[in-house]
């Protein structure tokens, strides 16, 4: 069965600076995959290359079809939801408006989608009309997840969901991610600096170094791997 997402020798640059030197990875349908690496390794750029936010070369296939040099709005229409660094929350708009924007590419009534979202994030209903920027960091991250889920995407790209959050919240976020994956069949590609929690949630992982995939494999293997332990897991 072909993978849902395939990257083949993807190169990307910001102006004159080459950020990705040929990244190849794949994500199978229904799994959670992780991209690990230090700062500047190219993790965020990889996600941007997928959603079309950066100039790139190389081949990207999604659901069997080649992704042309499309922009981010096309990626959204194809079923890719990208929660970027900083969450991409519309701070000036209300919680409800943020969710509604998440469902922008969907037609028809949103009632069912919204009901489903509420099962994972029950607190959203009472905060409907609150300005999104006044939510706490953890709440904003959950709102971002909810917004992405409203899109009913095939693939969810998450950029450092743990950033700036306390450990308890991080665990909660990843619990929800795993639930969305198991109960909704959502395929997730998560980029994380927190390798520990990422390897626990993901089935497979790719370690990026200086714009290339240095290591890849099932999470259990990587967790045992010498250099991964030293560099990313701290022991």
């Amino acid at each position, binding site marked *: 069965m072909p993978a849902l997402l395939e990257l083949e020798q993807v190169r990307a640059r910001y102006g004159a600076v080459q950020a990705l030197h040929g990244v190849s990875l794949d994500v199978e349908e229904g799994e959670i995959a992780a991209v690990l690496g230090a700062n500047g390794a190219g993790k965020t750029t990889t996600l941007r290359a997928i*959603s079309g*936010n950066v100039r790139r070369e190389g081949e990207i296939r999604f659901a069997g079809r080649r992704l042309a040099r499309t*922009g*981010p*709005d096309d990626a*959204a*229409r194809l079923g890719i*939801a*990208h929660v*970027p660094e900083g969450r*991409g*929350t*519309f*701070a*000036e*708009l*209300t919680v409800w*408006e943020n969710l*509604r*924007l*998440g469902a*922008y*590419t969907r037609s028809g009534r949103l009632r069912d989608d919204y009901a489903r979202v509420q099962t994972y994030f029950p607190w959203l209903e009472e905060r409907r*009309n*609150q*300005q999104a920027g006044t939510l706490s960091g953890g709440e904003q991250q959950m709102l971002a997840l909810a*917004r992405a889920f409203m*899109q009913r995407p095939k693939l969810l790209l998450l950029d450092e969901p743990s950033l700036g959050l306390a450990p308890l919240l991080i665990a909660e976020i990843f619990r929800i991610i795993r639930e969305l994956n198991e109960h909704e069949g959502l395929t997730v590609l998560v980029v994380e600096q927190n390798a520990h929690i990422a390897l626990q949630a993901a089935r497979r992982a790719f370690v990026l170094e200086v714009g290339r995939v240095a290591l890849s494999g099932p999470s259990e293997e990587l967790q045992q791997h010498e250099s991964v332990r030293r560099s990313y897991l701290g022991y």
Partner: protein
Amino acid sequence: MATFVATLTKRKTAVSTGVSIPVVALLVAGAVFLLIGCLSSEIFAQQTVSGLADGAIFGLLALALVLIYRATEVVNFAQGEMAMATTYFAYQLTQWHLTYWLAFVLTLAFAFVFGVLVQVAFIRPVQHKSVIAVVIVTVGLFILIDGVVTWIWGADLKFMAAPFGNNVYTLSGVAFSRLDIGVFLVCIASMVLLWLLFQYTKLGLAMRASALRPSSAALVGVRVDRMLAVGWGLAAVLGAVAGMMTEPKQFVLQPPLMQPILLYAFAAAVLGGLESPFGAVVGGLTLGVFLNLIGQYVGFATSELRLPIAFAVLLFVLVLKPTGLFGRRQVRRV
């Protein structure tokens, strides 16, 4: 109905503007002053009503300017000329024997298309390159549109049918012209309709999102470029209404019709805060009333000084509060 009102009031607490207590207090004080003045003097009331009608036009054009500025950080110098051109279109329709209000509606549709075309053809190619370039393009458009209109219709004075008639109503000694009331109502209705569009429709939400955070909007599937074009189309529609309301107030139609209005609209937009639609409206109404009252009661302030006075008001506000009455230091997010 109850839920509608409830959502309205709920929204008010959720929406944040650059409103500060001193500004609100000032405006309330001003409103009270106006009310007292209107009740005590007929001339005061007349000038206030007339000023509100003028001010509604300023506010409408200012709203168009703010609409575009919020989305693109560009001041559209051609906004007035675009409004003037669409008014000539309406004029032409009435010359072809369409009724005024039919011509009005058709002109709005034409204005929308015109605005979209201008954005796509002239603005889009430069909008990411350089802000100065875009401004110069709008200046070029100012000159171009003026030239084209003069070429097609000539520079002589034209007359359109009066949309509201020339009746004057008297209420306890105060004369209200039907024209002023009509102009005021049409302008305010346009503003309200626009507000409804932005607050309650999917398109309006997408446009607000595009203006606030273009890259985040793109990630959820909004075609930001299209939203910009729609924004220009809507701004052109607002301008068309402003132009068609200005014509009867000036009694004639000629190419320089909207040039002074553009200046007052700039002053109103800056007064209200360039990023605040609400500020544009309040700024316009305030400016209109203020100019009329000053002209009435300060002998020195004859009609030649209207523009310099508007400028002085502008400068005064900017020196005290550089971002205008309702503006706030907006950090532009990507």
